[in-house]
């Protein structure tokens, strides 16, 4: 392994860690944010009492509640019911949480960053340049992708992990030796298998539109412009697919209006009824991680991921309005080569920020949905899944084919008419 590869591998490890840390903290905050948002929707105040005493009591609207909750959960009794299948009962929450995290490996959170390492004279690099003079540092130009693993079947990987998530639920429900848990598990399995097909089919349109199943490629191609001004985001090219994907995603993460596996008013807590303490915490936490996952996938596949409209690493471009600013041609940038790298770095940071904003927006939307829409009945869910969403997903594929063909046929003519 060359030095380049080693460094790149280390960077991938760093991204894996960063993605884990970011998702875990966002999911942690969501446990509080969800209750707070629910209370605001219902004209209440919500949890605001947990405080941390530094100089005086800090409450910050109750943002320390996740810490208090986690601490409480960890110190509670770890209860395994009589007649339960011990090791399965133990392994179910671990599987549930682990798989939810693993799916984030393929989510890119910023655009590729190229550092023209070779162009920088060694003497101008602080500290390292002094320690290693000459060309030791200058192995090659870096292109860093902000993604733990750039799989070329990224979408399939996420779908597979989503499919495996059923196992955690199923094992938890079946091994608890409790009727309500069992019912919850049966409902979960039935519902998740019913919607898996439609979930996959709704994404076929996206894959066809962007010509790749690799998530990083899909995000990159969403930066193209339609008619020279409209960003080619998934929501614009595939609006039906987005609605179907979102519905199936809600189903996959077992949230309202499809939360019959939990169904508080019917089967108490469903599949994790017999869990307490840290294991319950893991099940609960995995639900919020799945929530972030659905938010991230919606952002990546349908809302351009890290794309900032009209702005990218090259410059600002709107062909229809004949606006074209290229960073490399700016006077200020031409004066020193490091300034281009600085701009690239800033753009990458902005892209990561934009991606985070999109994910947070979707988390907000999902929480709002939970506190707005009532739960579907079991037969309604089945009817919606098999008789509405599945045919619509298939029709969407046909529609996509027609649109792609039309676009190929008329794009040159349109470009000539609009004059760019």
């Amino acid at each position, binding site marked *: 392994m060359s030095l380049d590869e080693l460094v790149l591998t280390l960077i991938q490890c760093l991204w894996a860690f960063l993605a884990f840390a970011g998702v875990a903290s966002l999911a942690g905050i969501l446990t509080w944010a969800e209750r707070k948002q629910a209370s605001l929707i219902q004209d209440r105040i919500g949890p605001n009492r947990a405080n941390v005493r530094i100089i005086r009591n800090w409450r910050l609207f109750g943002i320390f509640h996740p810490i208090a909750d986690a601490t409480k959960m960890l110190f509670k009794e770890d209860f395994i019911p009589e007649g339960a299948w011990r090791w399965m009962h133990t392994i179910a929450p671990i599987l549930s949480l682990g798989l939810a995290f693993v799916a984030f490996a393929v989510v890119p959170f910023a655009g590729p960053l190229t550092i023209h390492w070779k162009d920088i004279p060694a003497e101008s690099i602080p500290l390292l340049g002094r320690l290693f003079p000459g060309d030791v540092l200058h192995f090659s130009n870096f292109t860093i992708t902000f993604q733990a693993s750039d799989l070329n079947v990224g979408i399939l990987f996420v779908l597979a992990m989503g499919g495996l998530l059923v196992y955690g639920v199923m094992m938890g429900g079946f091994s608890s030796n409790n009727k309500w848990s069992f019912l919850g598990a049966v409902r979960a399995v039935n519902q998740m298998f019913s919607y898996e097909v439609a979930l996959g089919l709704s994404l076929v349109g996206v894959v066809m539109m962007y010509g790749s199943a690799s998530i990083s490629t899909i995000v990159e191609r969403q930066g193209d412009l339609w008619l020279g001004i409209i960003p080619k985001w998934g929501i614009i090219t595939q609006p039906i697919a987005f609605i179907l994907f979102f519905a199936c995603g809600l189903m996959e993460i077992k949230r309202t209006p499809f939360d019959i596996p939990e169904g508080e008013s019917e089967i108490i807590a469903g599949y994790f009824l017999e869990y307490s303490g840290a294991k319950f915490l893991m099940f609960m936490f995995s639900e919020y991680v799945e929530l972030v996952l659905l938010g991230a996938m919606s952002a990546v596949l349908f809302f351009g991921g890290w794309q900032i409209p009209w702005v990218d690493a090259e410059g600002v471009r709107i062909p229809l309005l004949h606006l074209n600013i290229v960073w490399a041609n700016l006077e200020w940038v031409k004066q020193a080569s490091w300034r281009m790298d600085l701009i690239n770095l800033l753009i990458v940071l902005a892209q990561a920020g934009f991606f985070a904003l999109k994910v947070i927006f979707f988390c907000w939307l999902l929480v709002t949905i939970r*506190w707005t829409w009532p739960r579907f009945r079991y037969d309604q869910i089945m009817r919606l899944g098999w008789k509405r969403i599945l045919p619509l997903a298939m029709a969407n594929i046909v529609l996509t084919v027609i649109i792609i063909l039309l676009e190929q046929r008329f794009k040159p003519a349109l470009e000539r008419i609009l004059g760019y």
Partner: protein
Amino acid sequence: MARKKPHSNWVRLYLPELFRGLVVTSRHFLVNFFGFIPGLDRVIKKEVQTIQYPEERRWISERWRGRHRLNRREDGSVKCVACFCCATVCPSGCIHIEAGESPEGAEKEKYPEKFEINLFECVFCGLCAEACPCDALYMDTQEMKLAQDSPEKFILTLEDLVK
């Protein structure tokens, strides 16, 4: 029997109605969210009605009858002249006064040696304060936290009242 009207096609499309629901909840959320931000709360009135009691208090009218108190004169002595008006008018008989004789040369000839109000029996009707001829007994402390940890403390003595 009222017959249920069939839904219109617009409602049966389902998605627009779901979206309408989202608009309602989001409006509540946004109004309350920005209403909580200090500074913005003057522009946007939040719909949350909760008063966070120990930190926030509701406004209490000046006429509101709280715990009793006894006025003092300018020289610091208690204004009460032990005329027994309050004890007489009290419907629940919770005021117990023992009068004492003032020393020679004092302005008033009587003063209360003991002035006790039993809060267990008091109904906070305010008649005592109204009956008082010499402006001594008042109920304007706005004190509503009357809980105590032992029964003896519920009998207000002279010291409690002039505090």
